[in-house]
């Protein structure tokens, strides 16, 4: 009955909060720190806090990067959280140009230090902000965000933002300093959220429950 999810542990992130939130939502949580464990997972969560280059280096050296890509291409549900969402893209400019997993086309760039009106903007972006459907989307139906109303507030902590190359991958945006910031992406079994669902109260838990609904028991 309980969906089982595997958190990718590459030795950096605060995994406890993600684990606790998933367990609260009824999941059985396992950890994977080897490529074999990733290869055996029925559903994957790729968390992330910290710097892109550091995290990607750890993922690559351990062989986890390749294993995650293989498993995701085999159709296993994959949820990238915060830096874990940024890893899904081709590259990031944080700490020099660093290649990502390349599961979704696009790059990761610094949030501008000014608003669209030219006023100074506080970066990193820390705090609660509403989720809007991405341009050309009506709402969140049929996606990992389908359980929550549009404009629901979620918790963000980030200095960089994903720039998906394909508009169709873009699920939700938030606004910061007038800039549209990519807040969630989804293509098939691959979902990424820039915010922290495990820190976003009931709204975040509802999103995790939807994701768990796609995971095998």
């Amino acid at each position, binding site marked *: 009955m309980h969906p089982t999810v595997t958190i990718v542990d590459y030795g950096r992130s605060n995994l406890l909060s993600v684990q606790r939130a998933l367990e609260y939502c009824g999941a059985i949580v396992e950890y994977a720190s080897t490529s074999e464990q990733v290869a055996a997972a029925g559903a994957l969560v790729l968390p992330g806090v910290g710097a892109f280059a550091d995290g990607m280096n750890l993922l690559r050296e351990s062989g986890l990067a390749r294993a995650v890509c293989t498993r995701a291409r085999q159709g296993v549900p994959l949820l990238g959280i915060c830096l874990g969402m940024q890893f899904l893209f081709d590259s990031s400019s944080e700490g020099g140009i660093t290649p990502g997993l390349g599961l979704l086309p696009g790059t990761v760039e610094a949030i501008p230090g000014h608003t669209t009106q030219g006023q100074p903007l*506080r970066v990193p*972006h820390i705090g609660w*902000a509403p989720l809007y459907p991405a341009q050309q989307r009506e709402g969140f139906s049929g996606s990992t965000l389908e359980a929550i109303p549009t404009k629901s507030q979620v918790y963000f902590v980030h200095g960089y933002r994903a720039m998906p190359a394909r508009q169709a991958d873009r699920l939700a945006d938030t606004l910061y300093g007038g800039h549209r910031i990519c807040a969630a992406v989804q293509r098939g079994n691959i979902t990424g959220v820039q915010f922290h669902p495990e820190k976003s109260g009931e709204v975040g838990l509802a999103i995790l429950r939807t994701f768990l609904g796609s995971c095998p028991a």
Partner: protein
Amino acid sequence: MSAALRLIARLDVKDRYLVKGIQYEGLRKLGDPHDFALDYYRQGIDELFYLDTVASLYGRNNLSGILERVTRDVFIPITAGGGLRSVEDVGTVLKAGADKAAINTAALLRPQLISEVARAFGSQCMVLSIQAKRRDPLNPAAGWEAYYDNGREHSGRDVLGWAREAQQLGAGEILLTGVDREGVRRGLDQELIQAVCSEVTIPVIAAGGASNSGDLMQAARLGAGAVAMGSLLHYKQATIPQLKKELAENGVEVRPCIQQ
């Protein structure tokens, strides 16, 4: 448009108890911090901030047990502080469930620690706590000095210069406590908030003395990204839905309260 004003419950802990100090002198036991945390979460608080008030005394932070418990049923950002002296100390509270670490004393004694923590865990984890005391209580132009050890020891550092330096070193947020106002619910030190907010571009959390939604509104208008409240909540002077309603009615963006 910037992010919504964050309301943070500040939970000062001594051993297993929630305590409340008045200007850092004299502690009163209020109860089990978990009961307060859960109540505030259900009411719609945006973040929790735990401070181990006696950590410096014992030479170690004792919040791990409390953090491990609260992360089982509270799903909002949690900051832990008190007696954190090294990257290892920060790692310990993060592992126990905190998202960010607040550091005051150890950073004043060795500013490089800010860079070390930012490099190890990211700037967003590194909250610099500044206890600011007016050099001249009646004259804000005389400036503020940074204090440590619960407002007892003075560092000689100017608060504005220290805030700027900390940002350069990699601090992600500043928790700014006006020591003169701490625990007396006499209103926040507005000149202090304004001065620090114009000195740095990282978010500033205003703390010390918030007594009503008007104080929170002022803090937001002066540039604070968040307000930390202790007495106001612990003594049930206001509920969180009530504060947020008043803020929203006065044009301050907040995260709406949802039944948790």
